[in-house]
């Protein structure tokens, strides 16, 4: 197990190296720099000064090595746009907002989606199934979250005036973004839960359980759901980093000062250190969640063995 984990994380590390190199190269491949289009254009010596300060006058490979070396020491650099704080501080300020919204979203959408999917499957081919599957889950998957957000804002903020249209600070600010954000994962969850529950419902061992006269409740909880929920790990896992790093669209719609909004501004201002740091966070989370969901799968489903792992 440890050898397997070490191998997986080593691969992840290598992939990360390539990803950061790629992003680094991409950012520097475009002519111009972050200090070319500020409000007050800098004069020659001042521009030279500031590019030297951030090491932008050096060859790109040296800049990359420099960045990597600093990263190994836990230093992500200083954002060009807000030089008074370090990138780490900035992220520490912005990420909790995204994490709170994302955490609640995960809770609501996963539990809600599970329940909806189970109900739809157990009431297969009834009007309830149709409503939950076609109407709710397809609409949730198809409708962009900012569109839902705007519909919510126009109803609850503009027409009714019940909830704030955006911003951050009070608990009420959370309600609309979380609803808009959780619709997609909830719909996805409901869809897959329904499909995998249906697959099990007609399995032979379930019919066998019925034949033995077990109660419907026992069959549902112990026989159907326990098996049906296993494949969902592969759906849940990779979605978590997506939600926890925030949606650039949701955060723009509701004016949340979270990670996603910083990704937008950082990209626009060519804030190299901040972009790299954000990409790094997203990529590390992605990779880790993939590995964790693979491991979780082997733990709950003994038939699955990790590649190259013997127990």
């Amino acid at each position: 197990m440890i050898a397997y984990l070490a191998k997986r994380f080593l691969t992840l590390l290598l992939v990360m190296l390539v990803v950061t190199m790629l992003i680094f190269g991409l950012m520097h491949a475009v002519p111009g720099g972050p200090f070319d289009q500020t409000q007050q254009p800098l004069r020659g010596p001042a521009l030279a000064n500031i590019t030297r300060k951030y090491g932008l006058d050096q060859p790109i490979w040296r800049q990359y090595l420099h960045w990597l070396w600093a990263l190994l020491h836990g230093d992500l650099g200083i954002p060009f746009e807000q030089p008074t704080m370090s990138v780490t501080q900035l992220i520490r300020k912005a990420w909790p907002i995204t994490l709170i919204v994302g955490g609640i979203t995960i809770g609501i959408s996963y539990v809600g989606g599970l329940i909806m999917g189970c109900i739809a499957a157990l009431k297969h081919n009834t009007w309830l199934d149709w409503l939950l599957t076609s109407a709710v889950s397809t609409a949730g998957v198809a409708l962009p979250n900012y569109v839902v957000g705007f519909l919510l804002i126009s109803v609850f903020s503009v027409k009714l005036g019940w909830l704030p249209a955006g911003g951050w600070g009070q608990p009420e600010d959370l309600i609309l973004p979380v609803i808009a954000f959780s619709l997609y994962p909830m719909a996805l969850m409901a869809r897959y839960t329904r499909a995998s529950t249906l697959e099990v419902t007609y399995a032979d061992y379930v019919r066998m359980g019925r034949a033995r006269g077990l109660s419907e409740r026992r069959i549902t909880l112990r026989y159907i759901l326990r098996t049906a929920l296993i494949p969902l790990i592969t759906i849940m896992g990779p979605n978590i980093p997506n939600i926890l790093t925030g949606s650039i669209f949701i955060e723009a719609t509701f004016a949340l000062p979270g990670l996603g909004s910083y990704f937008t501004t950082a990209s626009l201002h060519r804030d190299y250190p901040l972009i790299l740091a954000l990409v790094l966070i997203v990529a590390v989370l992605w990779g880790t969640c993939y590995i964790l969901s693979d491991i979780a799968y082997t733990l709950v489903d003994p038939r699955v063995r990790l590649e190259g792992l013997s127990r």
Partner: protein
Amino acid sequence: MTVLQERIATPRSSSSFWHAAWYRYKRNRLALVSGVIAVLILVVAALASVIAPFGYATQNLNESLTGPSLHHLLGTDQLGRDLLSRAIFGARTSMAIAIGAPLVGAIIGIPIGILSGWFGGVIDFIALRAFEVFTMVPQVLMALLLIALYGGGVLKLLLFLGITSWVGFGRLARAQYLTLRDRDFVLAAKAMGVPTWRIIIVHVLPSAVGPMIVFFVQQVPATIFAAAGFSFLGLGVQDPLADWGKMINDGEQYLSINLTVALTPIICIALATLAFSFAGDGLRDALDPTSR
């Protein structure tokens, strides 16, 4: 005799597959209606300049933010531009991107996937690592970065969303060819000395194309989502061009004065994404009846 029979049988069997698929698709009423709406949206988009009552940039500041009237069926925006016309022209930009971007992704991804699935070995190893690297950064973030660096606009948006969507096509094509390359009909073709390129394109591709079409149609709503999202952030399509996302952005400030300004593009996006998703689902069920 057998050769003759095969010649007759082959076209008939392949056309009956599409017939059966069409039959299955037709029976799914939701998919059928969605398909009709999706085609309708495409037609409106193609004929925008003929259908629209006004130009997309025709301003009339005396009539800004008016509600629906006989003259302007959906009212006007803050610059007095006819909302209906802008929604129709918006369909043109949105659909161009929504169809064009997955096309770019397919053109890049499918050949890579085919080569890696068919030949395996080193090519497969490299392709798999490339898939890994490119899935690490989500599509929307990668596209955002590219747009921020190289600028927005319809063509660039199309290109960037296309480039960043290749991995899905690549993975799909790889999986298809990986399973198909060991089939008996491939072995038979090889035994008869058919050149490899011909097996890949003429013999195997028809069996692999169904899931690819489904995936393509399923990419369309996702692309509408992303493209309109970028325009909504002010990064995509620029004024005076009309785009649904751009129109939400315009209408956002006037929510309390005239709701229809924002509501029109929102309904357009919702309608288009729903239509293409339901049509895509119907297509999946029709082309691959074993998947459900």
